[in-house]
């Protein structure tokens, strides 16, 4: 026996392993992942990538208080889940992807593959990848979505968990040369004791354009681990929008790497936080080819809870003329909430433009006075300013009105609810 257990598992880790074992009948395929989960446990604050989201502790608290651990609940399904974020989308049930009636030029198939957790795209993480490990241990099978070359897919492709199924899914999407596509990751549903998970891999061909939307609106008792990995071809455009508007414990990772010259990356996100939430967005952006550009901005509205943003931009030695900018702006509307931001630049090339900035503060008093001096009452003026702060992220995406309206609609619903 070559495996040495370095420390005993915490009760929560042991419970998580039991939940994984109970998560299906195909345990053989998952056994390596379950074994690794048993062996390595969950990351904690001394693992740099998890410093602000101590998963061992947070899952521990969660499983410690959960009752009925042996009864994993399926995703709750309310009526509005049935209508896609953007009307007219092709909806893919990730539990049965082959049942989708795919549009021309798009092939959607099921597979028996599990996420590959053996290494992490984040060099600040453990040697293995936690999100993928959980995803594989709970048996998520990779659904494959392939967009052929030179194909403009008119309607967004919405990827969602199977109805009433286990809340773990995996996707491998490829978009062929010079094609265009929009993907929506729809993350909804209630809380099973173990965290739900979603791992996606997106490969964008040369000259292709992809908009990827992560619409996370889990129920208030749910834990969720998400990861999007993106490979961006030469002269390709990748736009990302992340909306976190729900969940109790959420970690969303985005790991992007350029795979050719001239690629353009535009990442925008809005994190809406209220009491009792812990929401973490961790991104890595690797520029490995010359002449690539990236702008990354996250805006956070905090009425309570804990928010985390970790953004890493790495520029390789050969990636000259990289132009990369990152910002994280937080509006703290309550003294009960907090937000931790950790922007990082790691630059090995000598002819680049890179910058990062993080701000946190209350509503601008001058702006508030100006609006009120025109007769707009304080609550309405504040709401207008908060909405403006986050709506700018949607505007900067520069996407068609139907998509922008759907996103601002989601944001407005949260703001109306919280004010």
């Amino acid at each position, binding site marked *: 026996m070559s495996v040495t257990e370095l420390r005993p598992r915490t009760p929560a880790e042991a419970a998580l392993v039991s939940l994984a074992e109970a998560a299906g009948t195909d345990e053989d395929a998952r056994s390596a992942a379950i074994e690794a989960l048993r062996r390595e446990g969950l990351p904690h604050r001394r693992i740099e990538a998890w410093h602000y989201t101590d998963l061992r502790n947070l899952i521990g608290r969660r499983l410690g208080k959960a009752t009925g651990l042996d009864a994993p609940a399926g995703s709750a399904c309310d009526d509005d889940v049935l209508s896609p974020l953007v009307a007219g989308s092709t909806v893919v049930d990730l539990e049965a992807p082959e049942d989708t009636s795919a549009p021309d030029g798009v092939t959607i198939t099921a597979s028996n593959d599990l996420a590959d957790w053996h290494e992490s795209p984040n060099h600040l993480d453990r040697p293995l990848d936690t999100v993928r490990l959980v995803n594989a241990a709970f048996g998520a099978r990779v659904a494959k979505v392939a967009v052929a070359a030179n194909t403009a897919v008119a309607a967004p492709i919405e990827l969602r968990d199977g109805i009433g199924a286990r809340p773990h899914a995996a996707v491998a999407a490829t978009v062929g040369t010079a094609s265009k596509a929009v993907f929506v990751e729809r993350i909804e549903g209630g809380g099973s004791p173990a965290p739900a998970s979603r791992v996606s891999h997106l490969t964008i061909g040369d000259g292709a354009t992809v908009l990827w939307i992560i619409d996370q609106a889990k129920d208030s008792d749910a834990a969720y681990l998400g990861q999007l990995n993106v490979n961006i071809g030469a002269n390709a455009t990748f736009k990302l929008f992340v909306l976190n508007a729900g969940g109790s414990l959420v970690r969303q990772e985005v790991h992007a790497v350029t795979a050719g010259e001239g690629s353009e990356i535009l990442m925008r996100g809005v994190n809406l936080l209220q009491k009792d939430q812990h929401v973490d967005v961790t991104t890595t952006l690797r520029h490995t080819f010359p002449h690539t550009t990236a702008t990354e901005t996250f805006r956070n509205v905090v009425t309570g809870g804990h928010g985390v943003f970790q953004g890493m931009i790495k520029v390789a030695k050969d990636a000259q003329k990289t132009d990369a900018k990152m910002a994280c702006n937080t509006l703290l509307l309550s003294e009960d909430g907090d937000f931790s931001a950790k922007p990082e630049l790691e630059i090995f090339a000598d002819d680049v433009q890179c910058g990062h900035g993080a701000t946190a503060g209350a509503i601008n008093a*001058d702006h508030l*006075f*100006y609006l009120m*001096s*025109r*007769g707009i009452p304080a609550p*309405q003026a504040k709401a207008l300013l908060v*909405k403006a*702060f986050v709506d700018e992220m949607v505007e900067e995406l520069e996407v068609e009105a139907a998509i922008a309206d759907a996103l601002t609609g989601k944001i407005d619903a949260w703001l109306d609810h919280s004010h």
Partner: protein
Amino acid sequence: MLEIKNLHARVADEGTEILRGVNLTVQDGEVAAIMGPNGSGKSTLSYILAGRDDYEVTEGDIVYNGESILEMDPAERAASGVFLAFQYPLEIPGVATMTFLKTALNAQRKARGEAELMTPEFMRRVKTLAAELKIDAEMLKRPLNVGFSGGEKKRAEILQMALLEPKLCVMDETDSGLDIDALKIVSDGVNALRSEQRSFLVITHYQRLLDYIVPDKVHVLYKGRIIKSGDKDLALTLENEGYSQIIGEAA
């Protein structure tokens, strides 16, 4: 219209006293100019009239149409008809100009118990006023004041004023940053609003603006007090002789 009685005010944070007993009356339909050297308290007075909470009134009162407004917040004052045209209008990214105008107008109407204005009528009014003030329709599609030049911002202030139809217009150095053409457009806009029911408090450094907006009264503010009042000729005297003569007389 407006009666300022022995008004003392200081900066709320640090306690520096800026107004030291201002007495001033503005009649219905009157255009009163307030002139004074830098640091005399002109802008502070305009902010206090609009209800900015960075300043604390320690003594005296502001009576507007028979009622003290000291306890009213800026939005309530605006709904009751007080308008401040800012010296430096703020840029507010993300707030669309038209949304802002409509929200402000309807909030005021609602506060006064009037029906909200429907969009077609609102659009008609804005377009008419914008044309008069030579404001490009494209400008109105931008976020509030974002990317506007100094002159465009001042014209946008006058557009807001004309749309909201206030009773008391406080204009804080509206001429600053305006070239002569823009000054004329802005002044025409203001003059078009002059009426028996509307009063103006025009704050300025220079007499130049008062060639275009001819005042009924001129008051000189110095070290937080009105030290001299007169008719429009007082502005010309100041232009010719500077403030030192009057300050000397008052001392």
